[in-house]
């Protein structure tokens, strides 16, 4: 081993070993990146069409800057709260003997199953004062904190408790140890979750619109819906893409120093659970309060509407076909998305280079755009170059891939990075070709991460509305579109069965996600 400059050398060596990624990784990765930047391409076409004067005029409109500020402010507050809630809950669940720990650990990620527009409806209907900034903050935080909670729980379980013990033995309190040792170690996980939260908040239209908080996506929508002018929408969406990329790059920058100091071979014993004493019930109470707001309340609202609407009868057939379509599209969409996420994840984790960083960043381009922008971009390309699949399932699946690639990619990249490249070398030395190594070693080892990514993507697809609405095969209905149809004419009661079915259905991948991340940690312990 060259220990003279271990960091520098191993980094250089890493580049040397894997310098030439094989074509069967590069091709799908490039395809994925190309798809992901499709919306950007569309936006640029529309923006350039307008000419520079128009673009400047649009960007200079009174209110644009203010709305960008409001959007960023909301995203910052929601992300901050999600980090606080997600990390705190993860710590309580993994590190303390809080009463009801196990049950709460299982319940904590479930708000992910509730679409933010459903939660927003529940709030608007029941709590008149919870509007505007406060309402948007509550609803978006409640619906997205699991994006932080889940990866942080997994990361906490893999932090070697020996490090915490060392810190304690050096005189730091449990509290300071948590924030200076444990929290540092889980930061990459928390940061990637926080990124998902921030971009979700930026791109969300449904919830903020129901809760009457004016943000950036509102202008984009108004541009389409009130003036039927696609140019301002395109210019402002391009601005949103730029903001997204800046945030994504920023996130990578915050986790880089931590990630590179990670050393392998840590065999984790289970951490001793901190006794909370009299504070125990208080801690459980806090978690329960979060769950009441984020889970119990919207579900109770749905049940209430459901009960109100029972007398009017339920369109069982439509409910069933909508459920079937939702499941089918979610499964197919997740498979399509992961088919792109796996090669990109392997490429990014194993072949670090400027090029692979660009590919990774490119995948974020579609993620913070409102669904309608991505949908219209695919309409644009669909009718021009993919007429045979336009308004058919394949194009809709592509839209899902564009929208949700980063969610799947994060999980794959993390899982691949966790397993040692030495293991792959052994397989090579035993006569396996690189592609066989991928099939027999890399993918099985990353399986829990791939499973987690699949579940996350599936979950998100189930809840997706705007792109589904424009790109679905004519006549096909998902639970989300049926829900939309009913709420369009005020029939809360008629909408409730679809909303309830959607939540129940989304619980499955959420639980699966949790399981997968649990296994992920277990494998990592080896």
């Amino acid at each position, binding site marked *: *081993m*060259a*220990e*003279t*400059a271990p960091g*520098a*050398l191993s980094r*250089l*060596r890493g580049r*040397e*070993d894997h310098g030439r990624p094989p074509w069967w990784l590069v091709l799908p990765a490039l395809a994925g990146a190309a798809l992901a930047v499709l919306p950007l391409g569309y936006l640029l076409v529309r923006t350039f069409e307008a000419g520079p004067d128009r673009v400047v005029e649009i960007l200079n409109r009174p209110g644009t800057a203010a709305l960008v500020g409001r959007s960023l402010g909301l995203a910052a507050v929601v992300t901050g709260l999600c980090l606080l809630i997600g990390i705190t809950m993860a710590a309580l669940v993994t590190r303390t003997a809080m009463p009801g720990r196990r049950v709460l650990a299982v319940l904590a990620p479930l708000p992910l199953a509730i679409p933010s527009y459903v939660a927003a409806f529940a709030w608007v209907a029941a709590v008149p004062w919870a509007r505007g900034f406060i309402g948007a903050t509550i609803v978006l935080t409640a619906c997205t904190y699991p994006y932080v909670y889940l990866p942080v729980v997994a990361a906490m379980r893999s932090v070697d408790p020996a490090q915490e013990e060392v810190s304690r033995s050096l005189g730091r309190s449990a509290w300071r140890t948590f924030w200076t040792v444990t929290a540092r170690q889980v930061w990459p996980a928390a940061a990637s979750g926080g990124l998902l939260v921030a971009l979700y908040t930026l791109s969300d239209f449904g919830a903020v619109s129901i809760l009457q908080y004016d943000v950036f996506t509102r202008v984009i929508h108004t541009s389409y819906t009130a003036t039927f002018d696609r140019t301002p929408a395109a210019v402002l969406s391009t601005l949103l893409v730029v903001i997204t990329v800046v945030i994504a790059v920023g996130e990578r920058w915050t986790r880089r120093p931590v990630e590179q100091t990670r050393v392998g*071979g840590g065999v984790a014993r289970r951490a001793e659970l901190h006794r909370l004493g009299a504070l125990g019930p208080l801690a459980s109470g806090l978690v329960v309060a979060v769950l009441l707001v984020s889970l119990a309340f919207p579900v109770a609202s749905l049940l209430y509407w459901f009960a109100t609407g029972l007398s009017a009868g339920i369109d069982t057939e439509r409910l069933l076909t909508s459920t079937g379509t939702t499941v089918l599209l979610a499964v197919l969409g997740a498979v399509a998305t992961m088919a792109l996420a796996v090669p990109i994840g392997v490429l990014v984790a194993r072949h670090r280079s400027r090029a692979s960083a660009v590919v990774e960043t490119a995948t974020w381009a579609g993620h913070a755009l409102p669904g309608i922008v991505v949908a219209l971009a695919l309409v644009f390309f669909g009718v021009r170059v993919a007429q045979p699949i336009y308004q058919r399932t394949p194009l809709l699946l592509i839209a899902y891939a564009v929208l949700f690639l980063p969610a799947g990619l994060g999980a794959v990249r993390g899982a691949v990075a966790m*397993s*040692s490249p*030495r*293991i792959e*070398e*052994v*397989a*090579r*030395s*035993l*006569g*396996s*070709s*690189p592609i*066989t190594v991928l099939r*027999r*070693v890399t993918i*099985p*080892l990353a*399986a829990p991460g791939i499973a987690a990514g699949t579940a996350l993507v599936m979950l998100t697809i189930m809840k997706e509305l705007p792109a589904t609405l424009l790109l679905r095969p004519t006549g096909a209905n998902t639970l989300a579109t049926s829900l939309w149809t009913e709420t369009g004419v005020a029939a809360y009661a008629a909408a409730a069965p679809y909303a309830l079915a959607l939540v129940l259905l989304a619980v499955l991948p959420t639980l699966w996600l949790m399981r997968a991340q649990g296994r992920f940690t277990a*494998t990592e*312990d*080896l």
Partner: protein
Amino acid sequence: MSEVKLSGVSKAFGSTTALADVDLTVSSGELTAVLGPSGCGKTTLLRIVAGFVRPDRGRVEIDGRPVVAENVHIAPERRGVAIVPQEGALFPHLDVASNVAYGLPRSVASRKRVDEMLELVGLGGLGKRRPDQLSGGQQQRVALARALAPSPRVVVLDEPFSALDAGLRAQVRDEVNEVLRSIDATAIIVTHDQEEALSMADSVAVMEQGRLVMHGSPTEVYHRPVDLEVARFVGDLVELPGTKSGLVVDTVLGRLPIHGSSIPADGPVVAVIRPEQIRVDARVERGAKGAHVDDVSFFGHDALARLTVMSDAEPVRVLARTVAPLQRGDDVAIRVIGPALVYPT
């Protein structure tokens, strides 16, 4: 079993030179240890042989067939070079038997081979265990069984015992050595532990800052190191200033014969002897020097004593390996057995 030949192999990572013009031939069926301090480039050398690092220059041949040459770089999986990495790197998702079977075709014969290999490394019957249910030593032996199962032409081992604790290390090392010998494998083992290298290998290649400074049998390397650095690296040393004249050297321990192979010009030199060449007696005899015992490290089979030699000039400190029951503060007599090596100052 095959001969491995490296010629003119160089490799730099950025501005850091890892290997500089290395020539090394590992004879068929032999176990060669590549010995050197951390950072000397030995792991890079091993990874070049296995095919994971492409050298900047030079050739590597296995059995006369070039695997690395100008415009030639055979993929690792087609070299027949099996690797045993530092911590074993067992596939955590496979059980022990599947780990060993990894490089074998799927067949009944393979299953028999797995059992054989597990038997060979003394782990018969543990095929169904998961890697995390094994001790470190067991994991290392599974890694070896996995490497040997497909009957590779060459096995390369990268500090395979460094992760094990001392007691276990000696035991596993002997077992691995035995297995390698029993199947007559050509093996290259990379290590920074001279005792390991000297005791296991048929030949030892000593590396220093990317250069191969010596390649020879363990005895040669130990008793006739090519320079002072190698001498220091391969074992404890007593270094004495001396004056060479002809075939003898005069030192504070008297006039010593010089080993024939190392011959600098007459004049001031560094004379070198091994601690076990120093005899310690309780009584001063003829031709012996008086010395004072400063400190003793007792190992059971022998002890290492640090002594100060009484002399007319400055006091000189020497090391002696001895079985005599010495204690700190004793005054003893010492003399040197056998020849000294001399190196230019």
